[in-house]
C-alpha cells in the first residue's frame, strides 16, 4: 500500500513498508486510508459484540453472558459503531476523495488533519481501555443518561474512560469538519465552482456544518457529567437543584444532528454511484443540495422527539419539525429514482449495495415518520421497534453505503479491484441477513420487548422472533468474513487498474489509481459536475454553465 505509485498505475516494485512515514504522514490520502482501516477494525469489534448479543438473545433466560457483562456489551457496541465506525469511515473516505473531487493538492490544514486521526484513534482506545478496569467498561448505553451515569455504582473508572474517550473523538470530529469546510471553500481547482462540486462533496460540507453546530454540545454535556461525577456538581441531580431532563436536552441536541452526520455522507456516496451505473447525470442536482441543507437545518430543531415519553417537552413542536424533515429526504429519494429513470443500468457490486441502501433506508424512513407521531412513540419508544428503525437507517442505510463506497473507491485507493463475484455474494448475504435480523424487531418491539435487556419473556412471540433475528445476524457475519477474504485474494492480483475502471464522472477518476503524491499531473477542463465524463464525451455539451 504505497502512496507513491507509478503514473500509469502499472505494477510497481514492492516498496518496503515504511512505518515511520505512516506515523508522520500529513497526506490526506494516507490519512484517509488510516481512518478507513481503523473504522473497519471497529466494525469487526462492534460486529463481533453484536454476534455475542444476538447469541445471548437467541433464547429467553440464556446464560451466555451475565447482566453486568451484557450491559457493557451493548454500550460498547453502540459507542463503537456510532463514534468509531460510521462517522470515521465517512470522514476517512472524504479525506481521501474530497480533495481529489475538487482538484485540490491536499486538505487546507494537513497537520490538523493528521492530529484529528491520531486523537480519534487514541480516543477509541481510551473508551475500550475501560474493559481492563476492575469495574469493567462503561455500561450505561451509548447515551449514558444521567442520573444513571452519575452513579458511581453503575460505572466506575470505566465510565470515566468512556467519557474522556468520547470527548477526544468529538474534538477530532470537530477539527476535521473545520478542515473540510475550509478546503471546499478555498482550494477548488480553476473552474470548479461551488455548483460544479460533486454531490458527495456538498454532503460533506453539510455534514461538517452539522458537526460544528452539534458536537460542542456533546463536549459540554460530557464535561458536566464529569463534574457531577467527581467535582460535587448537581447539574443532573434533583436533590441538589438539578434536573435529569437537562442531560437529555443537551445530549439529544447533539444526538439528533449526530444521526444526520451519520447518514448525509452516505447520501453523497449513493449520489456518486447511481449516476455512474445509470450512465446519466445525477437528477435534480440543485434540489439535492438544497435538501441536504434543509435536512441539516431542520435536524437542529427536532431533538426532543427522543424525549416524548418524559412528559417534559412540547410534543407538537418537535413532532411537527420531525415530520418536516421527511420532505427533503423524500426529495432526495425521488431524485435518485429520477437518475435511474430512462437510464442504462448495470449492477456491479457498488450499484447493488446502493440499491440495497435505497430499499433499506426507505423502510427506516417510513418507520421514522411513524415514531415522529407521539401517539405511536408512546408505544414504540425504548422498545425494539426503535432498535429496528435505527438499524434500518444506520445499518441498512449507512452500512450498505459503506460497502458500496468500499467497492467503488477501493481501486482508486489501492490500485486493486475487489473481486466482483465475491462482492455479489457479500451483497446478497448482507442484504438477506440484514432484513432477517431486523425486520422481526419491529414486531418484537410492538409485542412489548424493551431495549437493553439481556433476557425477555419466554411466553408469546418473542422467543421465535429473537431466534430468527439471531440467524440473520450470523448470515451477516458470514458476509463480512467473505468481504475480508475478498480483500486478501484481490490483493494478490497485480493487474494494473487504470485511472477510471468504472467509467465514472468526477475528478478523482482523472488521475492514476492510486494517485501520485501531489494528486494530479494534469486536470481536464471543469465545466460541469462531471469533468471526467465530459472529457470522455467531447461531443456532448457539458450542460451546466454555472
Amino acid at each position, binding site marked *: 500500500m504505497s502512496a507513491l505509485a507509478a503514473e500509469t498505475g502499472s505494477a510497481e516494485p514492492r516498496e518496503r513498508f515504511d512505518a515511520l*512515514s505512516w506515523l*508522520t504522514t*500529513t*497526506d490526506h490520502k494516507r490519512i484517509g486510508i488510516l481512518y478507513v482501516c481503523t473504522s473497519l477494525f471497529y466494525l469487526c469489534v462492534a460486529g463481533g459484540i453484536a454476534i455475542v448479543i444476538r447469541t445471548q438473545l437467541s433464547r429467553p433466560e440464556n446464560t451466555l453472558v451475565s447482566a453486568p457483562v451484557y450491559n457493557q456489551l451493548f454500550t460498547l457496541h453502540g459507542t463503537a459503531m456510532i463514534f468509531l465506525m460510521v462517522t470515521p469511515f465517512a470522514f476517512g473516505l472524504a479525506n481521501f476523495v474530497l480533495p481529489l473531487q*475538487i482538484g485540490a*493538492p*491536499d486538505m487546507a490544514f*494537513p*497537520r*490538523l*488533519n*493528521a*492530529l484529528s*486521526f*491520531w*486523537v480519534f484513534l*487514541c480516543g477509541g*482506545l*481510551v473508551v475500550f481501555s475501560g474493559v481492563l478496569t476492575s469495574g469493567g467498561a462503561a455500561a450505561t448505553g451509548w447515551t449514558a443518561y444521567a442520573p444513571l451515569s452519575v452513579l458511581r455504582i453503575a460505572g466506575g*473508572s470505566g465510565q*470515566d*474512560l468512556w467519557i*474522556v*474517550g468520547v*470527548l*477526544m473523538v468529538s*474534538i477530532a470530529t470537530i477539527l476535521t469538519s473545520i478542515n473540510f*469546510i475550509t478546503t471546499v471553500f*478555498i*482550494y*477548488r*481547482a*480553476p*473552474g*470548479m*465552482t*461551488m455548483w*460544479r462540486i460533486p454531490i458527495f462533496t456538498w454532503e460533506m*460540507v453539510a455534514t461538517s*456544518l452539522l458537526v*460544528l453546530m452539534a458536537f460542542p454540545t456533546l463536549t459540554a454535556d460530557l464535561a458536566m457529567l464529569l463534574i457531577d461525577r467527581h467535582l460535587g456538581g448537581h447539574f443532573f441531580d434533583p436533590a441538589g437543584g438539578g434536573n435529569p*431532563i437537562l442531560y437529555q*436536552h*443537551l445530549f439529544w*441536541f447533539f444526538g439528533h444532528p449526530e444521526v444526520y452526520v451519520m447518514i448525509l455522507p452516505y447520501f453523497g456516496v449513493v449520489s456518486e454511484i447511481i449516476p455512474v451505473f445509470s450512465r446519466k447525470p445525477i437528477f435534480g442536482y440543485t434540489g439535492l443540495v438544497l435538501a441536504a*441543507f434543509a435536512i441539516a*437545518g431542520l435536524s*437542529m*430543531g427536532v*431533538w*426532543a422527539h427522543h424525549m416524548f415519553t418524559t412528559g417534559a*417537552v*412540547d410534543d407538537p*413542536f418537535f413532532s411537527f419539525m420531525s415530520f418536516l424533515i421527511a420532505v427533503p429526504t423524500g426529495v432526495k429519494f425521488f431524485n435518485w429514482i429520477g437518475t435511474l429513470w430512462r437510464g442504462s443500468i448495470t449492477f456491479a457490486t457498488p450499484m447493488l449495495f446502493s440499491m440495497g441502501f435505497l430499499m433499506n433506508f426507505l423502510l427506516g424512513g417510513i418507520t421514522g415518520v411513524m415514531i415522529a407521531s407521539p401517539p405511536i412513540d408512546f408505544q414504540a419508544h425504548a422498545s425494539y421497534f426503535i432498535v429496528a428503525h435505527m438499524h434500518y437507517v444506520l445499518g441498512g442505510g449507512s452500512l450498505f453505503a459503506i460497502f458500496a463506497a468500499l467497492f467503488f473507491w477501493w481501486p482508486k485507493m489501492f490500485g486493486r479491484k475487489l473481486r466482483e463475484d465475491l462482492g455479489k455474494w457479500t451483497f446478497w448475504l448482507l442484504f438477506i441477513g440484514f432484513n432477517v435480523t431486523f425486520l422481526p424487531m419491529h414486531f418484537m418491539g410492538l409485542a412489548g420487548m424493551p431495549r437493553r435487556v439481556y433476557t425477555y419473556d419466554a411466553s408469546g412471540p418473542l422467543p421465535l422472533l429473537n431466534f430468527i433475528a439471531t440467524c440473520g445476524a450470523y448470515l451477516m457475519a458470514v458476509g463480512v468474513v467473505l468481504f475480508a477474504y475478498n480483500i486478501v485474494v484481490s490483493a494478490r492480483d497485480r493487474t494494473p487498474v487504470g485511472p477510471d475502471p468504472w467509467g465514472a464522472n468526477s475528478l478523482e477518476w482523472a488521475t492514476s489509481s492510486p494517485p501520485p*503524491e501531489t494528486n494530479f499531473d494534469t*486536470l481536464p*477542463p*471543469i465545466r460541469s459536475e462531471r469533468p471526467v465524463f465530459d472529457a470522455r464525451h467531447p461531443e456532448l455539451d457539458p450542460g451546466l*454553465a*454555472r
Partner: protein
Amino acid sequence: MTIGLRLFLSSAAFAIVIVLAYWFITREPAGTALLGFMAFGLSFVAGYMIVAEREADLWGDDARADNSAATGETVGEYSVRSPLPLATAAALTCVGLGLVISPTVAALGIIALLGLGALFIVQSV
C-alpha cells in the same frame, strides 16, 4: 457574495427564526439557550466572512477558468510529514487518561502540550 457566505448567512437567519419560534411556542429554557448559542455562532462566522471576504478572488469561483489560471503560482507551502500530530495526540491522551487514572500523568501531558504548542509556533514563524 460567495456561496460559502450565503450558506452561513442563511443558516444564521434560519437559526434566529428557529430560536425565536422555539421560545415563543414552548418557553423552554434549555433548548432556547442551545439554539441561541447556535444562532450566535453562525452569525459570528457569517459576520467574519463578510469582513474577510472583501479581497477574496478564488480561481475556483471562475466558471470559465482552466488549469492555466493556476500554473506558475506558489499558493503556499504545506508540510508533507510532521511528527507534531502524533506527539500532540499522545500528549492529549496522557491528559485524558491522567484525568481518570493519575494526576501525574495528566500534568506530564499538559506540559508536553505546552511544549508542542511552543514548537508549533516556532515552526510557523
